[in-house]
Each structure stands twice: as C-alpha cells, then as structure tokens.
C-alpha cells in the first residue's frame, strides 16, 4: 500500500473519497459531466421562470412576470369557458317544465347535480348539508310539508320564501297565545296535552281532554283545521303526524303555544337565476319528500 492510505482502493485501483465508515471506504464514483450540465441548465431554467412568471414577493405586491400571467385570471377564464360549455344544458333546463325535467334522466341528473351544489352554498346553513334540517328548520327529506311538497309548491317556496317580506311570499304565523294573554297558563298546558293526544303521544295524568278539545276548537281550528290536520295555505302544520318542527314534548309545545312561531325563509328570486331555482326545486323534490 502507498503511504497515503485511504486515497486509493487497492482492489479496484480507484480513488476513494477519503470517507470511511467502520473500515469501509467510499469509492469516488464521479458523476458524468452531462449530468452536471443538466443540473446547471435547470438553474438557468429557474431564472428564466422567475422572470417570465410571477415569482418574487415584494412588500405590498409581487413581481408580475413578463407574460402577465396570473392564476386568478386564468381561473376566471376557465370558469367562463365552463359556463359556455354548460350553456346549452342550462338553457335546456330553463326551457323544460319541472315535470319534464323529472321524466328526462339526463335533465334530472343535471338538475340534481346543479341543485346539490347550489343547495350546499345557499341552503345548507339552515337546512343542513344533507337537507336533514334542525329544530325550527324543516327536514326536506321527509314527507311533511308546511307549504306543500309538489314540484310547483317547492319551487314557489324557494322563489318567494316564507315570511320573507317578498310581495308573493307565504304568510301566516302561529300566534303567541300566552304572551298576548289570550289563554291562561293552565289552559295552555291543557291544550298542549290535547295536541299531544292528537298524534298519539302520552298525556299528563288527569288532564281534561274535553276542555282541551274546547280550547282547541275555539283558538286553533281556524289555522290547524278540524282535528288538527293542518293547512298548507297558511303553513299551519299537521298536528296529527309524527313530525314536529320544533319538538313534541310538553315543554316545547307550551313554549310554542305561549310564544308563537314564525320561522323565516328568504326569497331566492333575484339572487339565483331561474334555471338554478328550477334545478334546486327538482333536487329538493328528489330528496325523497316531494309529493
């Protein structure tokens, strides 16, 4: 061995890098020159990229590059292109009647897809992303409708809302029988139990059913109808079914009768274009609750 141990590997006769791990020395296996040149070329490419495209953050803005390219602008262009591409389909949607849309599988699929997206953006905050609703906000998957569940009725509700202030909106509200002093507290308890009995729920021991019926007939029938079947003209719910918007327990019913209820649904006409409202009506109808 030569005196410069570690510089050369005796077996291969090649240079080593001088690095040694537990007696194993690393051979110097040089990279080919073209590889290095390729590396330098990537640096040149990167510099060119810096100049041509927006790259450098400055204090209040950034370099805009020679091409004036921006991802935001290109997104806007692509969205516009998308509108153009979908133009025909949306026009077909706008032209078709609600019933025809449901019968045509292609239009139905389009309306459902469009409706679902728009629902997520606009309706989900109140009705939930799957339209399951919440206390005070109707579940749109079930078959109970305050203002009617046909395609046209759903469309009308979306267009004009409920108690929204729009000229054509649905009107009607549950009066505050307790707050306004129309009924005495014990009368409210009695009628609340009577209403529970209407839908087969258990009642408080010893409550006077006859009295409840009398109070109901005098105060509630005007809106909720004979036997409490409800009235969609006024958005008066059916009190004989198993679905309760605000809850069916005695305390909630007492609160409802005492304080009244008047949930608001905004009108979407003017905020969403007619084809989109149509798509949404079809979507909501297809959730499963539509009549």
């Amino acid at each position, binding site marked *: *061995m*030569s*005196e*410069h141990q570690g*510089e*050369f590997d*005796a077996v*291969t*006769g*090649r*240079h*080593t*890098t*001088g690095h040694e791990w537990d007696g194993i020395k690393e051979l*110097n296996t*040089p*990279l*080919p*020159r*073209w*590889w*290095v040149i390729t590396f330098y070329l990537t640096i040149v490419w990167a510099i060119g990229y810096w100049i041509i495209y927006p790259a450098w953050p400055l204090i209040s803005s950034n370099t805009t590059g020679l091409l004036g390219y921006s991802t935001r602008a290109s997104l806007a262009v692509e969205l516009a292109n998308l509108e153009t591409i979908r133009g025909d389909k949306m026009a077909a949607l706008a032209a078709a009647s609600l019933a025809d849309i*449901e*019968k045509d*599988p292609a239009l*139905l*699929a389009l309306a*459902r897809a469009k409706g679902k997206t728009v629902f997520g953006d606009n309706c989900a905050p109140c009705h*939930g*992303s*799957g*339209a*399951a609703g919440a206390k005070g906000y109707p*579940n749109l*998957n*079930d*078959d*109970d409708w305050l203002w009617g569940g046909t395609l046209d009725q759903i469309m009308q509700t979306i267009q004009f809302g409920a108690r929204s202030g729009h000229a054509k909106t649905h009107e009607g509200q549950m009066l505050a029988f307790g707050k306004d002093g129309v009924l005495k507290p014990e009368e409210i308890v009695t009628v609340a139990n009577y209403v529970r009995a209407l839908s087969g729920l258990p009642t408080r021991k010893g409550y006077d059913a006859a009295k409840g019926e009398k109070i109901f007939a005098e105060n509630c029938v005007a809106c909720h109808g004979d036997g409490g079947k409800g009235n969609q003209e006024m958005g008066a719910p*059916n009190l004989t*079914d*198993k*679905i309760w918007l605000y809850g069916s327990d005695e305390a909630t019913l007492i609160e409802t009768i005492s304080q009244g209820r008047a949930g608001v649904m905004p009108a979407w006409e003017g905020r969403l274009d007619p084809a989109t409202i149509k798509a949404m009506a079809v979507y909501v109808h*297809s*959730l*499963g*609750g539509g009549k």
Partner: protein
Amino acid sequence: MNKTVNPKDLTSDGDNGPLYVAHKKVYPQSVSGTFRRIKWGLMAVCLGIYYFLPFVRWNRGLGAPSQAVLIDLPNSRFYFFFIELWPQEVYYFTGLLIVAAVALFLMNSVGGRIWCGYLCPQTVWTDVFYAVERLVEGDRRERMKKDKSSDPMKLERISEIVLKHSIWLMIAWWTGGAWVLYFYDAPTLVKELVTFQGPMIAYIWIGILTATTYLLAGYMREQVCTYMCPWPRIQAALTDEWALNVTYRYDRGEKRTSVKKAAELRALGEQVGDCVDCYQCVAVCPTGIDIRNGPQLECIQCGLCIDACDNVMTKIGRPKRLIGYDNDINIHRRQEGKAPIYKIVRARTVAYSAIIAAVGGFMIYTLATRSLLDVNVLHDRNPVAVKLSDGSIRNAYTVRLLNKSGYDRVIAIDASGPANLTIHVVGADSVTPDRPMIVIPRDSTSELRLLVTAPAESNTEKSIPVRFHVTDIGLGEAASATDNFVAP
C-alpha cells in the same frame, strides 16, 4: 470505465480524483453468434408488437371501437382483444404489475439480468440505433477513426452523419407515433396526423417520445443503465448464488497468454489458460466493460461477449464458452475437480413461479367469471334515516348500475330485508308498483336515487341488512349488493 491499477504502480498525489467524468464513448464491435441471433429475434418481436399492434383490428360490434388494443381515456375504457376493462376494474392492472414484477424476479433468479440484456426498451432501441450507426458509418474501428479524425469534414463524412441522424430521427419519430396510436383509432389518427388535422396532444406526445428516443438510444445509451436506472441496484439484492450470470470462467481462462505462447507451453505439458487476452469481449460490449473483472453493475448480461469469445475460441481450436452463463459455485466446483451443477428448480424459483401462477390464475378466473351487469350501493350519510309523518322509516341510497355489455338493458330493481318495505326510484315510472324498471344504455352506468321505506313497528332493529337485486328482465342476468337499513 476506470482501468484497474496495481496499487504498487500508484503514485499518490493526495488528489481524490475528478469530481465529474467526461463521457467516454463506447464503440461496440459487431458480433455474430447464438446470443446475437436471440437478440435480433427478440428485437424483431418486441418492435414488431410495439409498432404494429395498434393496427390489429377486433370486431366488438356496432358503435364499439374495433381496435384490438386501445386505451380510450376520454371514455375511461381499456380494450385488450376480447377484454374490456372499466375504471373500477383497474385492479387488474395491479395484478398485471404484480405478475410483471415477480416475473422479473424469476428471470433474475434463473438467468440474471435477462430483462436488461434482451427485453428492456432501452437495450432494444439502443441496439437498433447501433445497427443503423454500423450500417452508415462502419464497424468499431472505422467509427473510432472517423470520430478521431481532425481533418476538415469532407462531403462524404457530412452526408454520412446527416444520413445517420435522419434514420435515427425517423425511427424515433415512428416510436413516438406508434405510442399515440394506442390511445385512438389508429387508421383514423394516422390519416388525421398526416393531413395535420390531428389533435395537438398527439403531436406533443409524438414530439416528446421522438426526442426521448433519439436522446436515450442515440446519445445516453449505456449511461441510462449505469446512472439512471434503479434496476441494477435492485437486482444486485435479488440475485443469488445459483443465478446464471454472464461469467468469465477464470478457472479455465487464467493465466492469460498469447496464442503462440500457449501452444508452446502446452506442448511442454504445462497448464495454461484459454484466454488469449484478445479483448474481443471488451470490444463488443455495449456498456464498455471487461467481463473478466467479474460481475459488475454496468453489465446488462446481453451475452454478446459470449459470442465474441466463442468465435475466438473456435478460431484457435479451444472449446467454446470460456465466457458463458454460469455462477461462481460451478467455477469453484470445477477447480475442485467436481462436475458443475445447475439448479433451476430452487425454493426461490418455485416460490416466484407459484406467485405468478396464483395471481395469474386468480386474474383469469375473475376475468372469466366477471359479470357484465353490476350494482354499487352507497347509503346516504346525511341524513342516514328519515322519519316520515306516519312514523315509518325511510333510508335513501345512491345506486349505480353498470351495464358493461354492448346492448341496452331494461333493469328491474328489487330490495329485500326490512319487513314490509317499499322502494321508489326518483324519476322512474314503474309499471309494476314496488319494482322500478330502468333502461341502462349499452356500455354505460346510471346513477339512481333509491328510497326504501319500511314501517317502524315491524322493524325494531337499529340496523337491518338490506339486499338490492338488479335483474336484466330480457336476459335474466342478475347482480346484487348489500347495505344496511338504519333506524333514526
């Protein structure tokens, strides 16, 4: 590659060697023999398949592509002769990849880097490019001389260079062109391409593949194998002591002497090696190594050195296969005077073959028994269940029906599970109540919203399995899927 230096001859200067090496051009000599013939044959088969397969037709009926092998990206279909794969069957490719990987392992444990030497696209195209170079510029010596010559370029030489690069570019262009034909109806695309009506993406891909073929096969060549390819590193870990690698049988070759001296010594009855140090094995090597230095990373085991050595051995009247497919075990056995043994059937090769057979068999089985009608069901998650005004429960499902056949089908949907259930498909008008019927066009899928309603009183479990049956009412073919019916 770096030449071996005797440590004694080294005069160290404290220098650790160059950081970067300039490319040393390899000038492989032409050679003929068994392995060269195998290589020509395999090259013809591989390139033949690659260049002409897109033009093979396959009748799939009206409206379906009539190309035997087609990757139809816009419609998400893959056609391979009688097989039509859908995106959700992409796991067949997983199986194919497993088989391919294990086949590579098997090749490696039987015969070393057979893939590298004979079948790898880099090897095949480099070989083609070398053949063109040899045809235009002459063999090793001529090429070396021409490259070294510092004379001003003569017209003849210039035309040679132009011709070589033109042929290279034509091959490269055809390689890129054949690639795009796998993604579109080949005859139509050829017509469109030559009339400049083809899609831009086709031209771009032809450009990319022309450039890479030209660069990799014309210039990078063996450097792809030594610097870029991970396989030499992996195969070193996969190979074992029984694998047949291209091996210099040093037991027979050493000591090396000239032909004349060997003859003299043999006449005196002395032991001499067969290697006459003619360097023919080095001259023909496409990666420019000396196989007599033992197994090396650069060696792609193409066997051309075997042919070169055999030719020399024949000429000098010595037995062939001084270099051959062998292993160190046999070299040692011969040195000990024992007969060499070749073990192809080993635990490793049996295991690899078994894996290939199992995966391949499973793939063939599933392909043969797969249904052309399928149904996928996804339960609505929000809300999972809805209580209706009469107290009954309703669950909603997204049902996807797949009609993989070449004809439209009328599908009836039934469900079973919860007691007294009723089903409804949104948008479907049923003739038979509770048995919705849907038309699914040929070779397509339909997504449906399906509602299952059941009375709460007769279904008191929190979750009841529900089974969806779909039946082609024409042919009777059926499929089913299971999900759960959940109470609120």
